[in-house]
């Protein structure tokens, strides 16, 4: 049985090619069904994200590879020969390793990103629902999900933010824990501030106030985050009630100064205040960083956090790669051991048949004996058979570590010696 993967990703194909191949969520079932219907394909699944489209199949022979490329080309409305230069083909253990790495986020553009885990799980669930997974692919996907989870929990690869807005949210969590119930003040409407506000909104902050020189723009933004627009000049009075302030205005001077924060703290009942200054020139007076309970981060501080996190992710990615390699080896051994199962079963059945027949003949010759005597003779014969079988079975199982040719040669020898068909 061959395990094959044919696909394109962000490293092998430009976006013009990937977008033509990409499978929308609504089309996933139809695509998997169509792939499974290809002649010679036993099990099939399709993984599609913005960075990759991959077909994973199990088949009796590798002859289906050409067919898979043609299937992809047909979907892209392209010539198979033209598409071939963007396509990669993986076989057997390489497929296992690749899937483990993809689901763990190790093959992603942003190493450790968490979405891919969900996308692989969706491909698995859809294929399972459609019944397009044969036992081999079923095992592979189950193990892939387990390995991906293990990589995340054991290495913590996805834990550190690698974008400025996300880093700001992570810092807010380090200060406040749960962001639900917090109030955010958005000063100005810079692109980065908007992104940060979007991330904060996604964490269900209680309320967002937006202040901008152009009040219409503030109203528009406030509507997007289900918040309230306030007049720019009134923003200072909101410092006492807000927990997070995101500043990103075009003002060439400090919009929030230390005195404002001192005044706000008089009414804050010791609650912390997180100030994020994304503007250049800076809008928040750096002296505020010295006030107890106020935590000020500017764009450079956030960039440093992101860079440090990237380094950390890389270190964790190295740990994750080692873990993946160990898991690939263990999965391979499991598959090989399963390969030996039919031979082991046949061996046991054959010797058991001999034992039963010989025992019966012997008992006929001996004549009447007691039940205890019969049990003793049966036990003796069973033990002898088990001892004879012990080493051949052990050899078959341990051959998992050998080269395929050696494994096959051992299997044939054992079958020949014991007269198995």
């Amino acid at each position, binding site marked *: 049985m061959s395990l094959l993967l044919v696909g394109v990703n962000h490293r092998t194909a430009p976006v013009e090619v990937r977008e033509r191949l990409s499978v929308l969520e609504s089309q996933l079932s139809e695509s998997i069904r169509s792939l499974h219907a290809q002649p010679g394909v036993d099990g099939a699944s399709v993984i599609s994200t913005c960075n990759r489209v991959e077909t994973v199949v199990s088949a009796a022979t590798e002859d289906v590879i050409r067919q898979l490329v043609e299937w992809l080309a047909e979907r892209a409305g392209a010539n198979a020969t033209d598409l071939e230069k963007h396509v990669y083909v993986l076989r057997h253990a390489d497929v296992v390793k690749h899937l483990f790495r993809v689901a763990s986020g190790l093959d992603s553009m942003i190493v450790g990103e968490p979405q891919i885990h969900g996308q692989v799980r969706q491909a698995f669930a859809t294929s399972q629902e459609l019944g397009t997974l044969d036992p081999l692919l079923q095992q592979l996907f189950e193990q892939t999900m387990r390995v991906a989870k293990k990589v995340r929990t*054991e290495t913590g690869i996805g834990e550190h933010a690698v974008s400025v807005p996300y880093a700001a949210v992570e*810092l807010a969590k*380090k*200060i406040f*824990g749960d962001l639900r119930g917090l109030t955010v003040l958005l000063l100005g409407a810079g692109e980065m501030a908007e992104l940060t506000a979007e991330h904060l909104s996604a964490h269900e902050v209680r309320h967002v106030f937006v202040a901008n020189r152009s009040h219409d723009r503030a109203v528009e933004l406030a509507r997007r985050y289900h918040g309230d627009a306030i007049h720019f000049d009134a923003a200072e009075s909101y410092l006492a009630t807000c927990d997070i302030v995101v500043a990103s205005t075009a003002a060439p001077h400090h919009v929030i100064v230390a005195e404002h924060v001192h005044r706000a703290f008089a009414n804050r009942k010791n609650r912390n205040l997180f100030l994020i200054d994304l503007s250049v020139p800076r809008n928040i007076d750096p002296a505020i960083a010295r006030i107890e309970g106020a*935590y000020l981060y500017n764009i450079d501080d956030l960039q440093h*956090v992101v860079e440090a996190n990237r380094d950390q992710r890389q270190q964790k990615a190295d740990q994750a790669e080692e873990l993946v390699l160990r898991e690939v080896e263990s999965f391979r051994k499991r598959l090989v051991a399963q390969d030996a199962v039919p031979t082991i079963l046949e061996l046991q059945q054959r010797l058991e048949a001999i034992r039963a027949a010989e025992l019966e003949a012997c008992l006929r010759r001996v004549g009447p004996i007691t039940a205890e005597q019969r049990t003793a003779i049966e036990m003796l014969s069973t033990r002898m058979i088990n001892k004879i079988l012990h080493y051949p079975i052990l050899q078959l199982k341990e051959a998992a570590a050998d080269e395929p040719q050696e494994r096959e040669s051992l299997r044939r020898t054992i079958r020949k010696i014991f007269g198995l068909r």
Partner: protein
Amino acid sequence: MTLSPNAALYIALAFYAAGTLAALVSLWSRERRLQSAGLWLMIAGFVSHTIWIGSVCVRTGHPPLTNLPEASSFVAWTVFAVELGLFIRYRVHAASFFVFPLVLLLLTITALVHEPFTRMDPQLRSRVFIAHLLFSTLGVAALMIGIAFTVLAYVQDRALKQKRPGRLWDWIPSLDICRRVSYRALAVGFPIYTVGLIAGVLWSYRTTAGLMELRVKSVGAVVAWVLFALLLQSYITGIFRGRRTLLVSAGAFVAALVAMLGISHV
């Protein structure tokens, strides 16, 4: 073969030592599995510790609080039980770097100070006395937890202020959780400790006809109470956020230890 009556104590000590070592090594290696292994070893130690405490109760017929080794062991047991509860609730890994060594230290005191398990003088036994022992020990345990989380809050605050995440960054929960747990431990522990202290004064008055003997133990207990109050007040008013809170915490910790080291009621 007869088993030493303290076998469970030594087993607990061995597990605590291994658990503490694993936790401290995980601080450097940042290996999550090691951290989990450390916690499981500590839990195994806690089970053995519980068995030992139970056996002492059976042998002596009173709560294991009447001398230094017993009280030290009970504080360690309570501190770990609370830490376990907090871990389940908040998944606070970092507290283990302070709590595990503290538990190990307290139980080492128990193992090193060999005092015989004698039955208490019946004249000394009274409800007031039992209340004194129980409440002051629980109060000290709460104080220890409060201090551990005050230290965590300080470390987290410095890391955020200086924008330099240290080794504990990933293990410490949010600043809010650290302060909330610390405040709750102090707010719950302070009245308990106060009741324990008052009960001690009453018992002392009944047995020695004086309100308090001026011994190191008594001075330590009163100083710990004052610093305990100061810490709690700092949380309520929001002052002493930084280094001063840490100094008060260290003072309270030392005073509580001094008070415990002087315990002998048999």
